[in-house]
């Protein structure tokens, strides 16, 4: 009976996930451009990947983004959550302000931020100028393109913040009281009580953050459209998903794109595994001794 109820999901899983996943493996071993029938070429696509400088570039861009955006977003989100957790007046209002941008359409957000980050007429550079800081050219120069995306992502960290907030509110008050009795200061309280208690939430956010960085597409596509290559100056905005999209839909290289997809799968699995393994060291589930 139970099977009956979950059958839609099982069917869906086979048709939309497992099936395509396996089919993708097979397609990745062909040359296929939709217009003529697929030609089997074995592992050539994978061999080609190793020599493809754009492949490595796209990995670099994506990792660079992940390494900047994930920690920064998580830390800022946590800090904001802690601040909001202090029983401030109007907390719901502030929570709204921080959470709202995360729900807005990414396409519209990209347009807004292209304009905000415009090197000559954008308000961010005006602000930097007023406080005497140098003004990077953001999406105009290769080195500052990914940082531009990272800044955009900070505006959208509302979801992480709300999740952290929920986690913080689940921390039993007694633990804090006990710590105070022990004479712990603010930092000690944070390190020994807050952090361990929210570590499952942190763990969840970290994994989802990594997956998110590798699926980052819409903003990269929309913002990349404004540049000659479609992926930023000197391909500095060539995120992995964007590269995959280009290969699949701009060039109709379905076989190679499938190979790229599988490479992505393996990379993300590997990273997730690493995080999962390391979680034993630092994630604390209620019931264990810290």
């Amino acid at each position: 009976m139970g099977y009956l109820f979950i059958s839609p999901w099982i069917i869906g899983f086979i048709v939309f996930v497992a099936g395509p996943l396996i089919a993708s493996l097979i397609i990745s071993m062909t040359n296929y451009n939709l217009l003529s029938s697929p030609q089997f070429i074995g592992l050539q696509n994978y061999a080609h990947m190793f020599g493809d400088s754009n492949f490595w570039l796209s990995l670099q861009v994506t990792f660079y983004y992940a390494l900047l955006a994930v920690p920064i977003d998580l830390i800022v989100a946590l800090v904001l959550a802690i601040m909001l957790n202090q029983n401030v007046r109007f907390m719901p209002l502030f929570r709204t302000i921080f959470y709202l941008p995360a729900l807005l359409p990414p396409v519209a957000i990209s347009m807004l931020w292209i304009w905000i980050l415009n090197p000559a007429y954008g308000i961010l550079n005006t602000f930097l100028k007023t406080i005497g800081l140098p003004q990077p050219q953001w999406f105009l120069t290769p080195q500052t393109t990914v940082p531009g995306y990272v800044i955009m992502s900070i505006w959208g960290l509302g979801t992480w913040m709300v999740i952290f907030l929920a986690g913080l509110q689940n921390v039993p008050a007694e633990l804090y009281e006990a710590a105070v009795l022990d004479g712990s200061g603010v930092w000690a309280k944070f390190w020994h009580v807050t952090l361990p208690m929210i570590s499952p939430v942190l763990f969840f956010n970290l994994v989802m953050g990594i997956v998110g960085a590798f699926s980052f597409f819409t903003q990269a596509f929309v913002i990349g459209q404004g540049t000659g290559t479609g992926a930023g100056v000197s391909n500095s905005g060539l995120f992995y998903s964007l590269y995959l999209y280009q290969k699949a839909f701009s060039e109709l290289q379905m076989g190679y794109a499938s190979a790229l997809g599988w490479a992505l799968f393996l990379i993300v699995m590997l990273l997730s595994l690493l995080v999962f393994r390391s979680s034993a060291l630092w994630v604390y589930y209620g019931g264990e001794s810290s």
Partner: protein
Amino acid sequence: MATSFCFLIPLFWLISSAVKPSDQIFVFPQVWIPHPAEWNNFAIALTSLPFGQFALNTLAIAVLVTVGNVFSSAFVAYGFARFRFPGRNVLFIVMLATLMVPGQILLVPQFIMYYKLGWINTFAPLIVPAFFGSAFYVFLIRQFFMNIPPELKDAAYIDGAGEWTIFSRIYLPLSKSALTAVAIFSFQGAWNDFLGPLIYLNSQKLYTLQIGLTEFEGIFHSNWNYIMAASAVIMLPMIVIFFIGQRYFIQGILMSGTKG
């Protein structure tokens, strides 16, 4: 607090830019409050492309996707929550694992599948998958279902009710808040979706608002006042939904995030 003010600045700038006359866009220092404020810009921006059609398309897709997600996910969640069967836990974990699979991996094979079915340039690829249960929503609703006291089910069982009756007459009505959360998330996801419409919709008459906006920018690529105006209007429904259903968003996250 100062930080929240900073967070609001981009939105303020959005509206400020949207009503700027064209000759006040590329000036330095920037104009924050344009004189005169051209509220007409909204009308000009929205009538230069068939945004009305785009809105209808987006609405249609979003509604169907939401209906599909809500019912199929509740259905599947019931299965996971109320029955014990071999492999249940394994399947549940597999389902959760799919959340960690980046969609890009399935992009090409799914596209080819739809291509063979002749569904390219239709709404079908965007809507059909929603009727098969979506991992995140199933998880959310299952959590909720697990909190419904089993006595209710047992009582109904004794009264001779079948599973379907229990599901639809007892569980569903009791889970209104969870279902609403799913509905709101789902609607928001469909409204904001870009990649799906991008690869599956080729004719302009099928475009959604998000695709329409990128096309708009392609044509008006330097008229930032119009681009901001169009962007603002496209964001508006999400803002409205957020204010109305705020607590459902938060609740939805509460029910799921903390169990990560």
